[in-house]
């Protein structure tokens, strides 16, 4: 386990955990919601297998992403995509409706929902984590194994943290921009050309990426927040005695 002693390893691990927690909170919600209708004795099994399926699928997706990112131009595409993901993290949630998959009341249906949902929802994580891992699959697996329990059992804590400190989200956006910037200049096509002309290109691109994501995200969310939403109350049939 010699590689664990290097500082760069732990820096990447911290980055991967931060990405998974920030971008993965909604996965935990889907798992909980998909399993809510199951009879109690099956609920924990549904959550367990849903999580196992989600982890397996995620590692497989990142494995392919790591190979794809070694191809020319794909890091540039990935970097730009990642910047957009960072900006999206800073925006208030859009209220658009989508087609949806039924939660289902059988164990199989619940696990299926969790796994399909994770495949769709984790695409942004996959790009970000693959970028932060810089080609090291061991790092990816380690980061995921640490962060998944945190997401599944700590989602309430993370939600509270983000609710109290919106700054956490801004920092998350900046982190994604930083990774995206570094990714852009490390593409096999761009790397040598840039390295010859610009010293410290990775650092400069990272800082520029972080700044761009934060400025763009704040500007867009400022425009979207202009219309204030009505208070949202959940109707209750059971009122107190009057």
């Amino acid at each position, binding site marked *: 386990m010699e590689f664990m002693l290097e500082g760069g390893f732990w820096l990447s691990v911290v980055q991967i955990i931060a990405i998974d927690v920030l971008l993965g*909170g*909604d996965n935990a919600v889907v798992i909980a*919601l998909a399993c809510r209708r199951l009879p109690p004795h099956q609920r924990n099994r549904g959550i367990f297998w849903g999580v196992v399926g989600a982890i397996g699928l995620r590692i497989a997706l990142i494995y392919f992403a790591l190979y794809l990112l070694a191809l020319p131009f794909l890091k540039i595409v990935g970097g730009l995509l990642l910047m957009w993901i960072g900006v999206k993290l800073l925006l208030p949630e859009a209220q658009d409706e989508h087609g949806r998959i039924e939660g289902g009341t059988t164990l199989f249906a619940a696990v299926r929902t969790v796994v399909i949902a994770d495949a*769709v929802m984790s695409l942004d994580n996959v790009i970000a984590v693959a970028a932060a891992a810089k080609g090291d699959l061991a790092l990816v697996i380690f980061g995921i194994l640490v962060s998944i329990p945190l997401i599944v059992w700590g989602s309430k804590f993370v939600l*509270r943290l983000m609710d109290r400190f919106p700054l956490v989200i801004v920092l998350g956006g900046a982190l994604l921009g930083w990774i995206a910037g570094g990714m852009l200049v490390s593409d096999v096509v761009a790397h040598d050309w840039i390295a010859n002309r610009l010293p410290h290109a990775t650092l400069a691109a990272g800082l520029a990426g972080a700044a761009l994501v934060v400025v763009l995200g704040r500007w867009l969310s400022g425009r979207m927040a202009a219309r204030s939403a009505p208070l949202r109350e*959940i109707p209750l049939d*059971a009122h107190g005695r009057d």
Partner: protein
Amino acid sequence: MANSLRVLVAVDGSLPSGRALEHVINLSRAGAVIDVHLLNVQIPVESGHVRMFVTPEEIDGWYRDEGIAELEPSRIALDAAGLPYTQHIAVGHLVETICRYAAEQDFELLVMGSRGRSGLGRALMGSVAQGVLAKVSVPLTLVK
């Protein structure tokens, strides 16, 4: 209820919430005529992705279940004290939703517990009570 004071008690099922409610029950025992409303606020969990896989009814059902569970200690305390009350569950940013609910529904007093966290806990989670104190526009009682 005529001539009663409309009081909103923001609760989350925690010990400080229980102390806040106890204070309201004491006021009532001392002769105050209070129209008690309990408010539990759920932090929104759904992103566009979540809505893709779960129906809005399912999400609302989740908020209802979580809210009812967090309201339960307060229901038990009020039932035991024989005080009538109304329950509400709202969804949104905690501080903003509590403040807006109190103002928009014309409450004359907001009562809530303060966790009294110190040191690291406070630095990490901050305090909802502190946020409300800074923002609220109706009279506020914080119970420690």
